[in-house]
């Protein structure tokens, strides 16, 4: 038996005034359902305060009420009373967040595309074996020419865009005379062949940089009324030697003013389609693509395994085993076999090509042997 612990409040509550006659079932039911008059309700409260028996009866009876009617009602009311704003506000926030992220992403991507030309104008592209390489504007070399490709090697189906690109490139050629040309080693040509597709996209974007920059400057110049004259003058100065090309690329002023972005997009597409990507396949053959996934081999007569390709504008250098070094000044249409002076035998492979300028460059073999030129590859030491 529990030991009673006295408590003043409980003791006084139990000692409360004696309740009167018990209310009948009707009154208790009416009390619980709130259908009694106020004075009746007060009387029932008074009785219940002093009658534990009726409190127990009321509690047992109300405990038998079906719960969905009694207990879930406040919950349902609370749920249904939520304002419509509170209902859709969280979802709207999520949607706004998604839109914001997408917008920032697009802007960031656009900015990258805008910045890439400026960053690569003075930097030659570096691709290792099996990586597609973007082309560069044509720059005719002066060395003895050895045609390493078949007659149709340079006649790809994107001839017209290529022509457009070449016509636009002289300005870039002027600005990239001091360009730093680097190369990439082809040590892992076999394994890197698998990543050629992914690399080609990036290389393409980078390779488009000079022409894109020119096209953008032209279109922006045409789109803005005031700077239009200045930009046009600059473009005319740059393209002085290629007036026809400028005439072809430059849209009509009225059109450019109305839809500069669309015009810029067209130019970018046209320029991009004219720029080949470069790679060295698993057999060591140098390949060129103008897009659409069609790769065509260049240097088809060369049986030696190529290890590295270096591209800067239209200058393309390819090196491979047996110290084989080729140079193309026209974006791969024609090739010149460079005779490197003998050093430590003939069995080393060229794995690294780096040109600080168009004239000064270094070629390095896998055994550390290197050759340098200061006259664009005419002489090596």
């Amino acid at each position, binding site marked *: 038996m529990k030991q009673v612990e006295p408590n003043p409040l409980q003791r006084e509550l139990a000692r*409360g005034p004696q309740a009167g006659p018990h209310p009948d079932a009707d009154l208790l039911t009416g009390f619980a359902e709130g259908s009694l008059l106020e004075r009746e309700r007060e009387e029932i409260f008074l009785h219940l305060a002093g009658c534990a028996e009726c409190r127990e009866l009321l*509690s047992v009876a109300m405990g038998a009420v079906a719960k969905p009617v009694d207990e879930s009602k406040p919950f349902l009311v609370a749920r249904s009373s939520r304002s419509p704003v509170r209902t859709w506000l969280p979802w709207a926030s999520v949607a706004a967040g998604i839109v914001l992220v997408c917008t920032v992403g697009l802007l960031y991507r656009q900015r990258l595309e805008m910045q890439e030309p400026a960053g690569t104008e003075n930097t030659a592209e570096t691709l290792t074996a099996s990586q597609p390489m973007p082309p560069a504007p044509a720059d005719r070399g002066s060395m003895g020419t050895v045609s390493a490709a078949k007659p149709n090697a340079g006649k790809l189906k994107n001839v017209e865009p290529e022509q457009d690109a070449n016509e636009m490139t002289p300005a870039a050629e002027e600005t990239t005379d001091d360009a730093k040309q680097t190369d990439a080693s082809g040590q892992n040509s076999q394994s890197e062949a698998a990543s050629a597709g992914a690399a080609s996209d990036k290389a393409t974007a980078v390779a488009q940089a000079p022409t894109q920059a020119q096209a953008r400057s032209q279109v922006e110049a045409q789109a803005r009324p005031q700077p239009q004259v200045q930009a046009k003058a600059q473009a005319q100065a740059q393209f002085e030697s290629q007036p026809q090309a400028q005439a072809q690329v430059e849209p009509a002023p009225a059109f450019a003013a109305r839809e500069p972005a669309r015009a810029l997009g067209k130019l970018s597409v046209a320029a991009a389609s004219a720029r080949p990507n470069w790679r060295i396949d698993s057999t060591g053959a140098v390949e060129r693509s103008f897009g659409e996934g069609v790769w065509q081999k260049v240097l088809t007569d060369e049986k030696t395994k190529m290890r590295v390709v270096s591209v800067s504008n239209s200058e393309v250098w390819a090196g491979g085993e047996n110290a084989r070094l080729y140079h193309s000044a026209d974006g791969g249409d024609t090739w010149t076999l460079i005779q490197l002076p003998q050093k430590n035998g003939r069995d080393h492979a060229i794995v690294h090509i780096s040109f600080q300028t168009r004239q000064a460059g270094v070629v390095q073999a896998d055994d550390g042997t290197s050759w340098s030129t200061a006259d664009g590859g005419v002489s090596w030491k």
Partner: protein
Amino acid sequence: MLPESATSAESIADPKLGSVVDRAIARRYGESGGEAFGISRERFQSIVAAVVVRYGAGFSEPEKVALVESLRVEELVLARACSAGVEAAWDAFLARYRAALHSTALRLTHDEATARELAGELSADLYGIPNSEGRRVSKLDYYMGRGSLEGWLRTVLAREHIDRCRSHRNDVSIEEQIENGVSFAQPDAPLAAETDGRVGAAIAETLAELKAEERFLLASYYLDQRTLAEIGRQMGVHESTVSRKLDRLTSALRKRVRWRLQSAGVAARRCDELLQDLDVRTINVDVAGKLKQAGSSKQESTAGTF
């Protein structure tokens, strides 16, 4: 045609309630649906007048009108028609309340067999048991329409259930009591003497000032150990409302008791010590024993009306 079995409540009804109340009763005849069960306008007037006489003694005329307007006349007429033996009324009653009766009994007993038995017994009482004169007397005659008929049936079932539990508790054999170890149980220990009589006096004075509703709240929560949800169901409010009321009430109670103690010359620190145990929910209290004591004493002094 109704039989002659008028209830005792109706037989003592005073038909002279006043023109205003009579008009209020007459207005409600249309919504009672009495015609469907063969209850005439005059009969309806008599039934409702009996309810007003029973509960409205001492009421003003507007209060009587309000009482008439608060009645569940449709269910009241149905109950009277059932007790009168109208078949259509019984059909309607069984269709509406048979399932509810059984489900309520099941929620009370938590046992299918017991629930069936409880509901069956009540159904027999509702149908009517012949009295010494051979006239059938239905328990539905006691329904007065103050609350819903379903709620009334629930309360009646709850009372039957409590009575059955109490009666069955006395059926425990001596062997079972010995097995359970209650045969030689000590009698309930008397309430310990108060450490300070001034506290009890201060609390008693403060409780006497409270409203009936506040005393009911305190008794249900501190004495009966009911949950907030249970109290809320009894009062027809949400448990959060009960919680807020209890918080305000206990806070005010403490202040008043403390003020009374200090007025009686008790030091502030001593007041804090004495009021430390005011929240009895945290103390192990034999509430059942105290309720039993209070119940037995009241049962002798009061007589139920049902």
